[in-house]
């Protein structure tokens, strides 16, 4: 990915108030794949007894990452909106760990993009959550 495109992607994330509020950073982006991470923060805690972050914070990360994967697909004509997103929570994220999401836009039609995503804490071999989603898509035909 050329540095200017990475820079554009980074600026794009920082222009989204909700993503910026949660401290999201674009780690990788290109060809229908995006990696975004955010720091653990006390205000994300959903269970005060354990310090585990709320599922809603993980949803926000997955949604942003899914949208970014769609927008950087080679055939994408621009913006996108989430049609539906399902998240499976496999285990509690370790309190204090940075959360990282990886999303892949694995199929597009003229108007819909299909995405799979996983979220990790600092253990890269044991995902904390998985997601599948459908996003709106505006396909640019090759050669046009």
């Amino acid at each position, binding site marked *: 990915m050329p540095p200017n495109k990475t820079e554009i992607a980074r600026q794009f994330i920082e222009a989204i108030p909700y993503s910026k509020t949660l401290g999201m950073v674009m780690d990788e982006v290109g060809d229908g794949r995006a990696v975004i991470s955010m720091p653990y923060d006390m205000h994300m805690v*959903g269970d005060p007894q354990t310090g585990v972050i709320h599922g809603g914070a993980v949803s926000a990360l997955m949604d942003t990452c899914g949208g970014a994967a769609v927008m950087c697909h080679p055939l994408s004509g621009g913006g996108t909106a989430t049609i*539906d*997103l399902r998240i499976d929570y496999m285990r509690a994220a370790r309190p204090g760990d940075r959360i990282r999401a990886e999303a892949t836009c694995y199929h597009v039609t003229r108007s819909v993009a299909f995405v799979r995503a996983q979220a990790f804490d600092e253990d890269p071999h044991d995902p904390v959550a998985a997601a599948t989603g459908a996003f709106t898509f505006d396909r640019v035909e090759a050669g046009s």
Partner: protein
Amino acid sequence: MNRPAPEPVQVVKVRRDVALDALVSGVPWITFMGIRFERRGDELTAILPYAEQHIGNPMLPALHGGAIAAFLEVTAVIELAWARLWDEMESGRLDAQTIRNAALPKMPKTIDFTVDYLRSGLPRDAYARARINRSGRRYASVHVEGWQDNRDRMFAQATGHFLMPAD
């Protein structure tokens, strides 16, 4: 033929409001999102007051899908925890003082959560109500409806499954 005198309404209200407040104010994420709950008897309505930080598309502008998902999930979890607390409280096993001082009941854990985005979220307040469709000893299934200006025009709905905490 003597029934015990009904509790004074103020006692009942204080107990219920204290219980709800204890449940909601103990969760940092709920405070961070600015979510509030209104109560009519046992019926809860969640409110997400509009905040610029919830925007996901500054061009439209529209609420972030993640903020909407978070709002609906909080609504579902609190409804479940509230339903359990309600039974404890109304059977007389818990009073306001105990609730104030005691550790909060354990929160249900989300197994999965699916959000259906029907319309873009407008830059204004949002509301949600959850309905528990099935609640067993270990698992529960909850449906949530979210709306903004018109109650019969949902902007998002969600279904989730939850693992109930062991007693």
